[in-house]
């Protein structure tokens, strides 16, 4: 929608302007922010109706809904920013039910003094992520908090999607004998963010893997509608996600370290910082647990999609009333891959 130039005396200064309290007040300034910034990028027929809600027809079958708050420092990092992350994160949570995402809602909490230019960059990046994914933001909200009471921008997104008939994916369906697959290399997002936060310069630039996975999921569900579990290993990484699934399903897991794809640059950065890549966040990877006979067709389908090119089987589900996730190390020993305690902290010496 092209803005109507006469409605506001002066256009928003998107180069040097900053967010102020009036932008959240519900008055003219807020209307202008929505029209000249948010609408500029996120425009679509439902959003343009400018109601406090979006009304749409519901397709038959099961719907899934997911919501996620996004807080990240720094807001911009190699391979993405909070805007694209807020889109990918929620689309992926919806997709992990095997669903095709339909619509997104977005809530913004802005800090007084935040540069409008940065906000425009973030919203443009959200729009690009939405376009690529074929999903629209159909309703939203904006609030402004006083300077010092926010971290620049917080974005909450909620997604709705539809599960194809016959698909029943859930974290409690892992069974002994099942195969554990991952869609690609682990730790890229967390290391990229940490490296830009701590101003560590590595020889190789490590980029976040932030991406929307629903197309990959659609390809997987097409060849194996009976997939047992899907989950994106975001915060807490592979280790935490597998511990969650083991607990939900009441099973153990046996992993093979040599089969787990990790990029050399990520492994080296982790080594330097004393971090374990198994615990580091991913934003464009999924873990799939499936019946053993589905593993090969699934790996083939995953590898023929760009986001699953490095897919691998990394282990299998075993019987274990204790619910331990174990790892056979590259070295030939065994160890537990436990839940993460607090945050991973870099080593001292």
């Amino acid at each position, binding site marked *: 929608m092209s803005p109507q130039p006469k409605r506001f005396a002066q256009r928003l200064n998107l180069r040097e302007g900053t967010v102020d309290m009036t932008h959240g007040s519900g008055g003219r300034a807020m209307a202008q922010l929505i029209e000249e910034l948010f609408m500029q990028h996120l425009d679509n027929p439902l959003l343009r109706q400018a109601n406090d809600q979006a009304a749409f027809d519901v397709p038959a079958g099961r719907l899934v809904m997911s919501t996620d708050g996004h807080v990240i420092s720094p807001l911009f990092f190699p391979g993405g920013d909070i805007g694209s992350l807020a889109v990918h994160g929620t689309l992926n949570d919806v997709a992990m039910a095997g669903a095709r995402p339909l619509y997104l809602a977005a809530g913004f909490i802005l800090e007084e003094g935040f540069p409008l230019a940065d906000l425009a960059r973030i919203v443009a990046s959200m729009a690009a992520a939405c376009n690529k994914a074929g999903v629209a933001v159909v309703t939203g909200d904006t609030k402004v908090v006083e300077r010092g009471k926010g971290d620049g921008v917080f974005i909450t997104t909620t997604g709705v999607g539809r599960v194809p008939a016959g698909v029943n994916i859930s974290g409690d369906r892992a069974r002994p004998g099942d195969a554990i697959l991952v869609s690609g290399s682990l730790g890229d997002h967390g290391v990229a963010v940490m490296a830009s936060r*701590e101003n560590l310069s590595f020889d190789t630039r490590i980029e976040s893997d932030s991406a929307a996975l629903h197309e990959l999921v659609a390809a997987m569900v097409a060849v194996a509608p009976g997939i047992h579990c899907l989950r994106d290993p975001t915060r807490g990484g592979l280790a935490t996600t597998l511990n969650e699934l083991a607990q939900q399903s009441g099973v153990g897991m046996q992993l093979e370290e*040599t089969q787990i794809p990790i990029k*050399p*640059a990520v*492994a*080296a950065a982790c*080594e330097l910082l*004393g971090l*374990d890549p198994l615990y580091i966040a991913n934003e464009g990877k999924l873990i799939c647990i499936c019946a053993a006979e589905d593993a090969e067709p699934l790996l083939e389908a995953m590898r023929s999609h760009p986001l699953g090119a490095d897919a691998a089987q990394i282990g299998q589900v075993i019987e274990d009333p*204790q619910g*331990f996730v*174990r790892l*056979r*190390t*590259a*070295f*030939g*020993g*065994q*160890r*537990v891959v*436990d839940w993460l*305690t*607090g945050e991973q*902290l*870099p*080593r*001292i*010496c």
Partner: protein
Amino acid sequence: MKYIDDFRRNDLAQKLARGIAAAVQPGRDYQLMEFCGGHTHAIFRYGVQDLMPSNVHYVHGPGCPVCVLPIGRVDLAIALARQNLILCTYGDLLRVPGSGRTSLLKAKAEGADVRMVYSTQDALHIARANPQRQVVFFAIGFETTTPPSAVALKQAKAEGLSNFSLVCNHVLTPAAIHGILHTPLPGQLAIDGLLGPSHVSTVIGTQPYVPLAQTYAKPIVISGFEPLDVMQASLMLIRQINQGRHEVENEYTRAVSAEGNRKALALVAEVFELRPSFEWRGLGRLPDSALQIRPEYAEFDAERRFDLPQQPAEEVKGCDCPSILRGIKRPSDCKLFGSVCTPDNPMGSCMVSSEGACAAYWTYGRFRQEAA
């Protein structure tokens, strides 16, 4: 990365394991103490114990800078943080419980300005960026982390950075080994040999260990932190034990020399001097075992700049950290292990630091206990 992979090759590990199996004499036990938490971590993370014959045992020592810090010093850090200044320190320390189950992390949640830094340089940046506030770097660590602290103090002095100071908790490895080997307590595990920390020796060299090996008749092998290093060093210790030798050997020849890094040592000597006595968690007060800031740098010494009440600190009742740090007990011997005390709710420092023995047992080795 190829560099890292070379030190984790499975075929080399199997070959070393066969060498060790052939070298050990049946009918005797080998108790090898790894002084440093870095080794403990490598042993658990790579499952090195699984590759050892059943009569080779690793005994976990005190060598984690967080683990050996007495509660009184943690209290001191918390008291400082509450004085409306910016307290900077390395990550692990934030979660260590002080007296009354408080910690720097809790003080931070209550409003104290506590910042986790990755290096002394980060702390200096914070001081430059906040000229109106006092910035204190709470420095901990063995000989490895001491040179960067010395550099920071020299820089602060050169720049006339009047709002920066440092609490020196730097401790000395050979003095601690002396503390462990000297007057062993009744019931103490016999230690047949020691793996020495390689990072420390890149600074101090191998020489300072020679009197220890001789006095206590224990072989010491300076070992790198890669799992293959640990295995190779273990084999070297086993050979010495078999032959009744007690020498200082160097497995980590790729970075360690006998005399160490002269430049770094000179830098440290310029800024720091021996502290007559320092309390270690588990080892008690040890003479000449730590450093303090020289009078020439007194203005940057937070212990002189701030009024710090020294209160007696209380150990957590039932926590066996002191015995574990001395190699007398194993984490699973502690009554609190895994019940009251877990990494999510640590009672003692051994469960806090990722390199602490209790945390390593819990995080990597728990299934062994459950199976037993």
